[in-house]
């Protein structure tokens, strides 16, 4: 029964993919979208069943289908693990997934390849589910690379534009750099522990009999490189902003709510390993904090609405890694969930805006949209308040917990995280003011057609905005449902009581004041003074550096891409030619030496073969006579 249901859970979106890829065109747009959405709803329903089940029984379910790869040191089952962590993850993956599919029915309706879009989106959900419920590292890796494939397909969905294709390619290759790290991590784990099964690993590690500090540290580094690639952390983050080339629902689903959290999922899955590598944990916290600040500063000056949100995502992911590095896994998970709500809402909202403006993404050409698009405006406003950490919205609770943990761990990290949060409040309200307030700055033609989006688009927005508002309820300080729920997953961790002392209240107050300051500055600048960022060329000084993203892309280009291509040219034009000439040189020398034999060289291969056979016979007969 459980096996069958687990198969339904994972295969439903695959079925949707197959239907849409083979028959999508004949099905027609509406049906194609409906099938795509329905299959994800099926997965969600099954997830809900398992989820309700586990809250009662507290029993994880293991499903084993067959032996997959034969490796001498460890077994690789094709199996699934439905435990507290994976089911929690599936809840928002399939839940938000279903909402975004629904949204896409309307959003993609004018696209001639809508059925392909739904096919890819379904395929993504399939791989994302595999990633989450894989019972060992390699099944997780199928999903891990599979979502990368779908990300590639969807970023480059409008494949006639080679810039988009470049972005897709870049995303895939940068992810692959991380994937090599992940692979090496898997090798080490398998080699040291003789298993890559999550449940077995946990048992072995928690039993404490394995004391291989060096290998565990190297494994943790390698695994973190994998996480950094998928979850866009320094130095592998530059693909995510480019990934915004994909249709907006893709940005919401893959590049905000689900796929990019895979790194956090993996580290939480293997928390017991990371706990044994404190140095790596420190590095994760530091990298997370720096990423959150760097990305937030870049977001301050971006003019493309989706780019702002993209850097915001990188920044928020950084905060999650900060929590992971502090060993506060359940807090990172908490922020993953609240972030999924408000960031998905923000992306979908921006999609609604882009849709209304006929594919305009430049905020300098927006403004005053709140009257025409009240639902989009209000839902985005709620999400903006949530991400800025305003009481009592979801982001307030999760971000505060991260900052509090940071404060107790290392005040410097707390300062960095707090700065990033203040910047977040600023750039989010800069976005809101530029988009929704003051006068419209677009063309007259656009102005005439300004409209609120249809219900298929606003409904997901409303649901997500509600979740972004009240989502904090799942983990209130002192009475955290989430911690209670996850307790069986962290058997070695004492239940952390979130008792609030004086320090905590002060920290909360500081964070709130910081967020209000951020919003206030944005208000003064973009609302009161009605400023609008100038043309690209007018950026100077620091803002020019920020606008150009610290020139990191250019630096990578100069350090990696160009040299490799130059080397390739060198190999092609010189080494290959030289080697070839060298081999022929041997031939020429032989030619000179066999000057006499030259007459025999008739150039007929038949003759050569004849000589070959004769020579062969000669050798045989030599043996024959000799022995």
């Amino acid at each position, binding site marked *: 029964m459980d096996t069958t249901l687990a198969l339904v859970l994972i295969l439903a979106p695959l079925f949707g993919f197959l239907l849409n890829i083979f028959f999508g065109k004949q099905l027609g747009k509406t049906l194609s979208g409906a099938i795509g959405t329905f299959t994800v709803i099926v997965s969600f329903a099954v997830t809900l069943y398992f989820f309700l089940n586990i809250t009662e029984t507290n029993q994880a379910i293991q499903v084993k289908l067959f*032996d997959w790869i034969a*490796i001498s040191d460890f077994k690789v089952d094709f199996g699934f693990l439905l435990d507290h962590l994976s089911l929690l993850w599936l809840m928002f993956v399939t839940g938000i997934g279903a909402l975004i599919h629904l949204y896409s029915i309307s959003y993609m309706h004018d696209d001639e390849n809508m059925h392909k879009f739904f096919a890819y989106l379904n395929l993504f959900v399939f791989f994302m589910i595999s990633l989450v419920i894989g019972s060992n590292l390699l099944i997780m890796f199928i999903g891990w690379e599979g979502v990368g494939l779908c990300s590639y397909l969807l970023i480059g969905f409008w494949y006639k534009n080679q810039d988009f294709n470049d972005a897709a390619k870049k995303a895939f*290759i940068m992810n692959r750099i991380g994937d090599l790290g992940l*692979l090496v991590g898997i090798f080490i784990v398998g080699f040291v522990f003789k298993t890559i099964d999550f449940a077995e690993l946990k048992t072995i590690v928690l039993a404490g009999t394995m004391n291989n500090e060096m290998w565990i540290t190297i494994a943790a580094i390698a695994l973190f490189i994998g996480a950094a690639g998928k979850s866009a952390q320094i130095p592998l983050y530059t693909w995510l902003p480019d990934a915004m080339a994909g249709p907006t629902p893709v940005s919401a689903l893959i590049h905000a709510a689900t796929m990019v959290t895979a790194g956090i999922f993996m580290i939480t899955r293997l928390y017991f390993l990371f706990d044994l590598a404190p140095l790596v944990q420190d590095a994760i916290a530091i990298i997370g904090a720096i990423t959150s600040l760097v990305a937030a500063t870049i977001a301050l000056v971006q003019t493309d609405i989706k780019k702002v949100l993209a850097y915001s995502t990188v920044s928020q992911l950084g905060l999650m890694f900060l929590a992971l590095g502090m060993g506060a896994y359940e807090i990172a998970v908490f922020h993953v969930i609240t972030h999924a709500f408000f960031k998905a809402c923000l992306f979908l909202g921006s999609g609604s805006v882009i849709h209304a403006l006929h594919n305009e993404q430049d905020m300098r050409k927006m403004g005053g949209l709140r009257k025409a698009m009240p639902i989009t405006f209000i839902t985005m406003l709620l999400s903006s308040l949530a991400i800025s950490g305003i009481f009592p919205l979801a982001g307030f609770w999760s971000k505060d917990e991260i900052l509090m943990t940071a404060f107790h761990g290392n005040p410097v990290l707390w300062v960095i995280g707090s700065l990033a949060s203040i910047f977040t409040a600023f750039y989010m309200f800069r976005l809101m003011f530029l988009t929704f307030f003051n006068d419209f700055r677009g063309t007259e033609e656009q102005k005439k057609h300004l409209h609120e989006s249809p219900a298929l688009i606003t409904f997901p927005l409303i649901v997500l905005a509600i979740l972004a508002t009240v989502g904090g309820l799942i983990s209130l300080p002192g009475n955290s449902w989430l911690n209670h729920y996850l307790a069986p997953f962290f058997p070695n961790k004492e239940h952390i009581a979130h008792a609030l002392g004086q320090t905590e209240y002060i920290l909360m107050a500081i964070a709130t004041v910081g967020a209000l300051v951020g919003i206030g500055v944005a208000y003064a600048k973009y609302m009161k003074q009605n400023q609008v960022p100038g043309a690209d060329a007018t950026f100077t000084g620091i803002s020019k550096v920020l606008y150009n993203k610290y020139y990191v892309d250019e630096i990578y280009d100069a350090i990696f891409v160009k040299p490799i291509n130059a080397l390739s*040219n060198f190999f092609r034009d010189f080494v290959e030619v030289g080697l070839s000439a060298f081999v022929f040189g041997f031939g020429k020398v032989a030619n000179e030496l066999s000057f006499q034999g030259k007459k025999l060289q008739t150039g007929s291969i038949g003759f050569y073969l004849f000589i070959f056979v004769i020579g062969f016979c000669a050798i045989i007969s030599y*043996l024959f006579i000799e022995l």
Partner: protein
Amino acid sequence: MDISLLLIILLVGAIATFLAGDKMASKVALFFGLVSLGCTLYLLSLFNAGQNLDLTMAWITKPVISFSLKADGLAFAMLLLNGILTPIIILSSFGNEVKNAKNFYALILFMSFAMAGTFLASDGLLYYIFWELALIPIYFIALIWGNGDAEERKKAVVKFFIYTLAGSLFMLTAFIYLYSKAGSFQLEALYNLDLSADEQLWIFLAFFFAYAVKIPLIPFHTWQANVYQKAPTVGTMLLSGIMLKMGLYSVIRWQLPIAPMAAKEYMNIFIGLGIAGVIYGSIVALRQRDIKKLLAYSSLAHVGLIAAGTYALNLDGFRGAVLQMMAHGFVVVGLFFAAEIIYRRLDTRIISEMGGIRTQAPAFASMFMILVFASISLPSTFNFIGEFTVLYALFQVDMWFAILGGLTIILGAYYMLKLYQHSMLGETNTKIFKDVTFSEGLVMVSIIGVIMFFGFYPKPLTDLITPSLETILLQINR
């Protein structure tokens, strides 16, 4: 019933094709290709049921050369590769007009015969004869039915021929030396020889020259790209899909177990050479203008990794190498066929002259894309199974080997996605590009089917090859 049935069918098929005349040749050849596949599967089922299919027949009494064939799991894996690819390759040429069709198709089957013989022979000299025999049909196929300027083609092909022949002569010398010690060419007898470390080194190197040219390993690869480019696609497929694997197979079957001490002593050097090929091949592939040359260098990179796997001298290395030989064989044939499909329509192999095909030929674009992702070892494809196993085998030797060899997953993605982007994507091509025909689609779908099936369920294959590889490993560690 023994394994020689397969060889007989292929040889009879070659003769029948030749006699069938130009009109019928392709169909007769396809028929015999399919029969040989059926026969392979039938024999495999007998083998799995525990039947011994080996054959030993006296042939020449002095020196003692016997016609002996050994059908173990390893040989069957290679026969499967040969058996599945032969009809696919024949079918792939149905869209081309072939002059002198009876010779062309007869040569394909003859080559399949010689390669099957190479995989089966367990007498050194018989093996050598099959090994060289396989060279003859491919020589003519490349020379006569190849493309481009005839003089240039001749230069490339003759170079290839002489080069591989020269390499093989070292192997022949080694066999003769071994015979002088053992009094027999039989594999078992050669395995049981008690050779000194010095002798082993020389034998090892002599084999190495033959295999390094065939596989090819850098810097012995210079024949490859030009021949791949000049040969007709069928020839390129035979070479890259099956013939290269003769070299890799022979490393496991002959080189390592006969000279195990040398193999162990110098394993790091040879693993290093394989990995150097991975990196070098991948980097050269990046800036190739000709699609067939790009695929040739990608092949160089892939076989380099496989070779490194074999020289890792552990079970995972052998197992991964054999699986990857098969996986690479299927994928590379599919990719060369994709290049051929483009060539049939656009009359070019220059990547910059392609582009914008996806809009016009969505089915072809999807199939090509699956092959691209298989070749960069996306999990759930057969290639991932092989590559993962090989990399883990390298990891067991040294973590850095796994990391350096693992660069293939980054560099491979770079050049293959670049190829796909510039050949298939972008603004719609101004030239008309018809989607795949039925026979083209059939070829592609068969290959993709095999790749996906074994990607999810490689167990039948691993169960097949593991016992024989363990035996060989036991021999190496004796």
